[in-house]
């Protein structure tokens, strides 16, 4: 295991694999941070990744252009987010129940849609993907070059969104408005902040971000849609949000940690064929648990998360 880190070639591969596995989770976690900071649980991330993946595949398949796919994917996420917002904010459905309902709904809808769009070839239809974009000079650096600077455009977008998201959330007035909405919506309302509009926008954008993670799966990783391809990434993202203490940067670092564990588990299996493979499969989840219990003992979620806001009640 140690010798893998000593060999620059292997180290570069481990880093690149970590980033590939982490990116969809990171997008979803970023979306989740936004939604939860505004006071709305987004358990529907898993379904929204799937919606984004389906939209991306269908768009790219129909138009033959990955850009159209990306647009379609993000649009699907936006609609899914709007549905969750409508249920959770307008109709005050329990947010956890609404999220689970969205997951079930989207799992079924995307499966149905893929048989409709791709027909007989469902699951086998290749679509156009995004070409990796190498950053000149930087991509020639040893080890970190291929891992960080020869990635696909969505990874750069993720980095840009994370940093700007962090700056917006903690350093601007409207970011403060969003956080106030999640902490104490009544006080925010009294102060003239448009609580409902803020929450609607946050949840919708959250859906779009999770869907961008799904777009990465399709347009940058496997170039096809298959049913249930989100495979639990949305739930890992929920853990990443908590581990990242509801901060965009923290959530992305947590996603990277999970991606690293997943990469290592695929590699460690060869070196230790006698150890049951299930032990390696639980590494990412065990890491999440240990990190949650040990490191973030004092983490504090937004005070009003999960509570629907009603102006008429006291």
């Amino acid at each position, binding site marked *: 295991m140690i010798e893998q880190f000593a060999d620059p070639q292997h180290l570069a591969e481990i880093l690149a694999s970590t980033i590939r596995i982490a990116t969809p989770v990171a997008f979803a976690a970023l979306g989740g941070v936004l939604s939860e900071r505004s006071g709305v649980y987004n358990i529907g991330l898993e379904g929204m990744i799937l919606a984004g993946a389906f939209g991306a595949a269908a768009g790219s398949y129909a138009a033959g252009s990955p850009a159209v796919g990306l647009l379609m994917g993000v649009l699907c996420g936006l609609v899914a987010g709007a549905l969750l917002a409508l249920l959770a904010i307008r109709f005050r459905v329990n947010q956890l129940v609404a999220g689970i309902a969205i997951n079930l709904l989207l799992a079924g809808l995307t499966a149905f849609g893929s048989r409709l769009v791709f027909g007989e070839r469902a699951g086998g239809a290749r679509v156009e993907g995004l070409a990796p974009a190498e950053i000149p000079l930087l991509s020639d650096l040893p080890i970190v070059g291929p891992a960080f600077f020869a990635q696909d455009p969505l990874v750069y977008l993720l980095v840009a969104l994370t940093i700007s998201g962090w700056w917006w959330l903690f350093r601007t007035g409207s970011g403060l408005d969003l956080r106030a909405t999640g902490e104490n919506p009544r006080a925010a309302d009294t102060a003239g902040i448009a609580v409902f509009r803020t929450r609607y926008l946050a949840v919708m954008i959250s859906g779009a971000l999770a869907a961008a993670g799904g777009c990465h799966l399709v347009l940058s990783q496997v170039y*096809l849609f298959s049913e249930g391809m989100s495979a639990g990434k949305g739930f890992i993202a929920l853990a990443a949000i908590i581990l990242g203490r509801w901060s965009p940067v923290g959530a992305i670092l947590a996603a990277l940690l999970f991606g690293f564990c997943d990469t290592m588990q695929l590699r460690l299996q060869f070196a230790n064929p006698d150890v049951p493979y299930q032990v390696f499969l639980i590494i990412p989840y065990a890491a999440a648990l240990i990190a949650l219990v040990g490191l973030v003992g004092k983490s504090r979620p937004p005070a009003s998360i999960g509570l629907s806001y009603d102006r008429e009640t006291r």
Partner: protein
Amino acid sequence: MQLNRRLLPGAFAALFLWTGVALGSGIESAAIVMPGSISDNGWNQAGHDGLTKAGEEFGFETAYSENIEQPEHVEALSDYARRGYDLVIGHGGEFQDAVKRVAKRFPDTMFMVNNGLGTERNIANADFYFSQLGYLMGYTAGKMTKSGTVGIIAAQKFKFTNDTVASYKAGAEAARAGTRMLVTWTGDWDDVSKGKEAALNQISQGADVVWPTMDSATLGSMQAVQEKGVYGIGIYRDAIKEWPEILQSAILDVRGNMRAYLKLAAEGKLEGKSYKGDLSNPEAMRIGSYHPDIPADVVAEINSLVEQMKAGSLRPLPY
């Protein structure tokens, strides 16, 4: 999808006929319960197609349930038995326990477990002699590897995958002594991106022949094979038609194997015993097309191995 609405009228018709149907006469309806999606390009799609096509050919009603998780097995199987289906199929070895429980309560219904282990009066099994194909694929991989390292990717450990991995190893060793074998268990049949990462990892560790044996996740692995320019091995169908990197395919023809026993069922001859497909029945099990890179003498060697297996003089383990 538990109740297939289009088939509901048929189900009711079958219910009325139920009293008249007993073991021994030909079946008039059959249902299959599957763990995954019918468009997975693999095991479940084969199960669905196998039953539907045989139903059309031999003239009996069919119905299916897809994406049935373990806790729902008993309920899904009983539901079909209760509604009067003459033959109820559990699609996968994981249905064995549930079928055993349900079959006791419905003695007049015939049950089948595809890839099952254990028969009773009204429980039949159908599986394959997996090791024959595993050995042949391993032999091909061992002959064609330049690095001396070959890989296999599987989802979960059970008889099918255990036998396949073991015989793949044996075959590779027979072709080239000291072949290094990489085995990855992904724990997921359908996680396409994980399938791809698993293959990329094997390739980066030196594997130049990779055999993915999952369902949808195989698509991801094959993309890694394609991108990195190494060889792959196919499963279930002649995969070289889809991916030109495929050396040879292990065609476990679930459709053909099912057709064989469904024909017996339609004639009223299906019994509670094990129907094991092997190379001597090409409808159920065979190898696919050879990659043009494989030298003629290797092709001849592999063909002679096939003949030896058919004749019974070569019996790769585990059986």
